[in-house]
């Protein structure tokens, strides 16, 4: 009999009950909650006279609607304010753990979960947010759910699930200098497509993945959903265990060692069989820039905007043509000739301390180009912001003409005041380049923090190593 995959192990450890047709009642260890997808769930709970099954499994935070400037004035938009206040009244009504906007621990839900040790290896983690896959970087089974499921988890601590297929994506070899986790995941999505992982749980493996920091692994798992997979994960290694050690909600002392012993078993067995295996050569991955309106529409920085006329599948060619029109790009334009109007460094994909360090390294001693109307850095949490300020990164950005903001989702999805105006083009470290994602009529190019920083300095896309001065 073949060995078990990491996914098998995580799944089996959480089965409460299995029906003959494979429908499984799966136990949920950690439930992360934010203001946008929870109000209707709490309302449903109240209307049915139910209470949270295990309130201590919940960690709630406002992130999507919060302003990134002038926080003392509160939330200006009354609709956004109502939503955040609704979360506050729900968590206080049910006695749930909550970091309000003024708390230094507030931030993007997928940044603060690992940062607080609220998400640990071996856990099942859910949140009414598709980027919950981020937490899989710790060797957890983490996936996004809808609001009906949020209510279900609140009421029962469980979800009905069917086991999906398992895919292994192996990235072997050594990365070229300047190639980051973000480039790896964009290259993967470019290769397998936005539906390539649909119906699968993806395990990212191989020497290039193992060589990444835990934060880099989070950037990769974060975008599993952009490849269609609800869950992405990386096996536990010593880096995982050292990352977790000392986090506020992690176990301590002997209990930590006992937990770590278990966590070390959270790897796929050498003889485990996957339903699909995809292999990439790390050395062949270049820094990536998206050119279209789907995360699979990516090109290497030294490449060109593709030509729909060269595409044989007519449905696909039409999609490409529509994307080029929306993006106001011409086929065969070199990627380095594309000139953004704004630069956004932030989001649950790329707003952790290492992301900010990578961007600051490019920006240091340089200035934002004149054609860049706004370059903004939005740290993932209050604690990331604090750390960055201790390291002087805020000064580097401010001296270069960037804005240094308060933590939140910000212009990744533009639910707060941070957004693109119609027709504006943005170099963004976020995860989605859908039409209108960053503001109606806005045009998004997904890139790594280093590339976003370089674009801000040069005024067009460029490899950081080619910047002058």
């Amino acid at each position, binding site marked *: 009999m073949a060995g078990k995959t990491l996914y098998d192990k995580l799944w089996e450890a959480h089965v409460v009950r299995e029906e003959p047709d494979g429908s499984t009642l799966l136990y949920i260890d950690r439930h992360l909650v934010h203001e946008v997808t929870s109000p*209707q769930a709490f309302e449903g709970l109240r209307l049915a006279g139910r209470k949270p099954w295990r309130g201590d499994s919940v960690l709630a935070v406002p992130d999507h609607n919060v302003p990134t400037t002038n926080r003392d004035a509160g939330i200006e938009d009354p609709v956004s304010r109502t939503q955040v206040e609704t979360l506050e009244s729900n968590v206080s009504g049910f006695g749930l753990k909550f970091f309000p906007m003024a708390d230094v621990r507030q931030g993007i839900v997928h940044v603060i979960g690992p940062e607080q040790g609220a998400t640990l290896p071996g856990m099942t983690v859910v949140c009414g947010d598709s980027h919950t896959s981020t937490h899989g970087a710790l060797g957890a089974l983490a996936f996004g759910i*809808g609001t009906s499921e949020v*209510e279900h988890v609140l009421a029962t601590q469980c979800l009905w699930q069917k086991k999906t297929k398992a895919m292994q994506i192996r990235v072997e070899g050594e990365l070229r200098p300047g190639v980051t986790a973000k480039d790896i995941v964009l290259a993967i999505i470019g290769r397998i497509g936005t*539906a390539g992982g649909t119906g699968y749980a993806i395990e990212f493996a191989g020497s290039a993945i193992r060589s990444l920091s835990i934060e880099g692994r989070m950037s990769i798992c974060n975008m599993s959903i952009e490849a269609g997979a609800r869950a992405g994960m990386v096996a536990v290694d010593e880096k995982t265990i050292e990352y977790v050690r000392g986090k506020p909600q992690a176990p301590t002392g002997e209990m930590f060692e006992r937990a770590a012993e278990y966590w070390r078993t959270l790897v796929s067995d050498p003889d485990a069989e996957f339903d699909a295996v995809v292999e990439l050569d790390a050395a062949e991955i270049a820094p990536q820039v998206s050119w279209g309106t789907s995360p699979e529409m990516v090109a290497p920085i030294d490449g060109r905007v593709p030509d729909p006329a060269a595409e044989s599948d007519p449905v696909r060619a039409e999609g490409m043509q529509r994307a080029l029109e929306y993006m106001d790009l011409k086929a065969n334009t070199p990627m380095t000739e594309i000139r953004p109007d704004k630069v956004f460094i932030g989001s649950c994909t790329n707003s952790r301390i290492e992301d900010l360090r990578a961007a600051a390294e490019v920006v240091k001693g340089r200035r934002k180009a004149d054609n860049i109307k706004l370059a903004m850095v939005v740290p993932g949490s209050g604690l990331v912001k604090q750390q960055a300020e201790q390291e002087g990164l805020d000064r580097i950005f401010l001296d270069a003409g960037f804005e240094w903001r308060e933590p939140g989702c910000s212009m990744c999805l533009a*639910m707060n005041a941070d957004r693109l105006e119609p027709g504006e083009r943005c170099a963004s470290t976020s995860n*989605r380049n859908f039409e209108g994602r960053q503001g109606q009529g806005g045009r998004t190019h997904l890139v790594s923090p280093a590339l976003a920083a370089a674009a801000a300095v040069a005024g067009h896309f460029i490899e950081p190593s080619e910047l002058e001065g």
Partner: protein
Amino acid sequence: MQAFTVHKGIVAPLDRSNVDTDAIIPKQYLKSVKRTGFGPNAFDDWRYLDPGEPGMDHSQRQPNPDFVLNRPPYDQATILLARKNFGCGSSREHAVWALTDFGFRAVIAPSFADIFFSNSCKNGLLPVVLAEDEVQNLFEQVEANPGAQVEVNLEEMTVTAPDATVFRFTLDEDRRHRLLHGLDDIALTLQFADDIRAYEERLRQERPWMVE
């Protein structure tokens, strides 16, 4: 949840792949704390020429005459036909609420994103997966004959095209059962409360650090 057994209605052809949930319901409408009222803003960026904000009077907006749902008889459609990977992107259940609030009872496509598929089944909106050539066939029939009706039958798991061709689809038995009877998931799960408690007892023994 509204049960789904058999539904016959007008099909709106939305000839796009990768229709994402940001397109189905743009982010500014997610600020609502309700489950209802999203219908007028379904596909807002495609459906109107002026930028939309919550609270606007829809009678004062400028509909995009080229968008399928603005063209009679498709404004009366109850079945949506689209290309592959429908509902990709964000987990927002508001996308499903926007479609049901508009009046849709079913979406037919060659494939769906996983979270959308799951959300859809929990709201009585039936996601029907047909083969790409079957979807192509339906596009051709509907476009040749606007307002043509299609019947979706969950009991038989069939789609009957305007020309009476019958296409078969599948849905896992558990979801089918819940949709056919409009069952409340939580009440069903709480029948197994003892199993959940027994699991938690094991958890406290085997992995005590997981339970604070």
